[in-house]
């Protein structure tokens, strides 16, 4: 009698099973983009201590006003989203050159005022451009001082750069 060969298991249906699972995961997958602009809100006002607005010289404030139709004024001049970054960089790095602009980066404050009707995308766009301006300046400074871009610095070095160009963006509440 001939020896019976051990029969192999038919793996043909394996592909079908795998396909079934694959399609399930394909359908349930939502490639969630988890990107965003990070922001730290100012702490709530302390009711015990009286809130006193810090005195800031007018020339150290870059005033950005956006109305309900998404039109923007920077320092009382109409401006476009495309210009925000350039204007912000000029303002922050002025260092007293222009007597009407900021004294130095530590004192420079950017103030955003918007109405309740201003669209979210307009706000995000302006905000994004301001952060871009700061990132640009910090990167330039980091390269000058350490020869590396800002992201590649150690934490301490990053702190030095951050202290040299602190991000001061103030938002005021729109009137109801």
């Amino acid at each position: 009698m001939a020896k019976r060969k051990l029969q192999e298991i038919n793996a043909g249906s394996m592909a079908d099973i795998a396909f079934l699972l694959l399609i399930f995961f394909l359908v349930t997958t939502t490639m969630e983009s988890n990107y965003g602009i990070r922001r730290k809100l100012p702490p709530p006002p302390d009711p015990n201590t009286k809130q006193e607005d810090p005195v800031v010289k007018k020339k150290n404030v870059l005033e950005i006003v956006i109305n309900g139709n998404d039109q923007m004024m920077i320092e009382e001049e109409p401006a476009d989203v495309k210009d925000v970054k350039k204007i912000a960089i000029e303002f922050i790095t002025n260092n007293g050159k222009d007597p009407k602009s900021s004294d130095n980066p530590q004192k420079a404050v950017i103030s955003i005022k918007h109405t309740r009707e201003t669209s979210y995308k307009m706000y995000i766009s302006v905000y994004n451009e301001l952060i871009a301006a700061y990132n640009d300046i910090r990167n330039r400074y980091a390269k000058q001082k350490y020869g590396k871009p800002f992201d590649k610095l150690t934490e301490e070095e990053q702190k030095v750069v951050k202290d040299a160009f602190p991000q001061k963006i103030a938002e005021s509440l729109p009137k109801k």
Partner: protein
Amino acid sequence: MGKFSKKKDSGTPAISTASLPDIVFMLLFFFMVATVMRENGEKKVTVRMPSADQVKKIEKKSLVSYIYVGKPIKKYQAKFGKEPRIQLGDAFANVTDVGPFVLKEKAAKREEEKPLMITSIKADADVGMGIITDIKEELRKVNALKVNYSTKKGGVTTNFNK
């Protein structure tokens, strides 16, 4: 001579499908890893996020609470109208519910994780800033100061293309 002529060409041989499972499994594993099971359940508002390019990625997804803001989807427009609404978890909510919601999320986390909590606002590009400001004020009240404005990756000029 006839011995060799036996091997006659009988059409093209079938392609072996033995490696098909391997390929499918590879794809399967990719999607299994990439899949995020939505814990919030149904989305009841439409959110088309604005674009921005100065973005950071959120690393720890478990420490994020999401607030959705947008117009209710068609199904709910009869009941809730077309004005932008807030969705917390899987239900519509008022601005005043934001604070308790964030505190509840925070209470469920471990003590050392609590300061790392981030609140992510996923708002539609076209909602007004009024509702966003209200949410921000609520978050300030409960000391949830780390906020993330969810955006797509892209230049800001794409926000204004009609």
